[in-house]
């Protein structure tokens, strides 16, 4: 299973729509102060679903 080295979330671009958090299959993301945030990097399987479906260029996943 692929792993992520880093999940970059650009808070200035995030509009807090929660798409990434709700669609994450492993519950690696959460909402913090109305913005997306990394909850548990170790859980991330680098499936890229969050990055692909973020409408706002606000999240980038770097694979290990």
């Amino acid at each position, binding site marked *: 299973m692929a792993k992520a080295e880093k999940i970059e979330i650009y808070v200035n671009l995030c509009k807090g729509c*929660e*798409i990434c958090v709700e669609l994450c299959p492993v519950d690696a993301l959460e909402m913090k102060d109305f913005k997306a945030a990394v909850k548990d990097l170790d859980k991330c399987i680098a499936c890229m679903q969050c990055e*692909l479906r973020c*409408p706002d260029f606000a999240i980038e996943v770097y694979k290990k």
Partner: protein
Amino acid sequence: MSYDYSKYLRKGKIPHIWCPGCGYGIIMKSMIRAIDSIGWEKDDVVMTSGIGCASRLPGYVDFNTLHTTHGRSLAFATGVKVANPKLNVIAMGGDGDMTAIGGNHFIHACRRNINITCFVFNNFIYGMTGGQYSPTTPKGSRATTAPFGNSDNQFDIAQLAIGAGATFVARTTTYHAVPMEKLMKQAFEHKGFSIVEIIAGCPTGYGRKNKLASPAGMIEWQKEHSVAIAQWEKMSEEEKAGKFPIGVLHDVEKPEYVEAYDANVGLS
């Protein structure tokens, strides 16, 4: 990071104007990847749009971009393409822009089979003006101008395009971000008029009125209600109820408009 969009984005124009959870950002990203994968030079790409949320897209991307009047995206695109057929012309607009006020241009662009790629962003509502019913708003759905539920029948945009003579017609959703990119590339490669209808969520204008407010919920809805065309063709009418087919729905060859014109008038 799986893809660097910065080469195609205009500096300082992001964040875009679209609401939180609007599917149009997902479409823009798939479109950028599709243009990158076909390898067109930015100088050779012309992007036209009409008026509405979808039509704001060209302002964000680094091509020759033409944000026109309501519904007229394809009419301007036709002028550009006929005057200089070497340009790769992409026309876009929303469901209201393309099939209501721009409906005449839409069917005639299909009929001509001019080598333009058309993306229709279908979010079932007029978003920019605040949520009025459009030609694709489902019967019974609420809109600000349909407070008792929508009485109108709906356009099936893909079927409309096929009926009007488009030679490549596909449908996808914002759930299918990667297949969307592949379909867009196929549409670019197709010689003749190609259209991709993209089902997208409008959480603000449509979702709130119809108890679908969660953007992720709207994307899940797209996943649950769409069926790949190969599967669709095997389904009974009962199984099809409430669902819609996605993928390449129509792909035929016909003479391209400008080539046919040039051959006819002795220009080629």
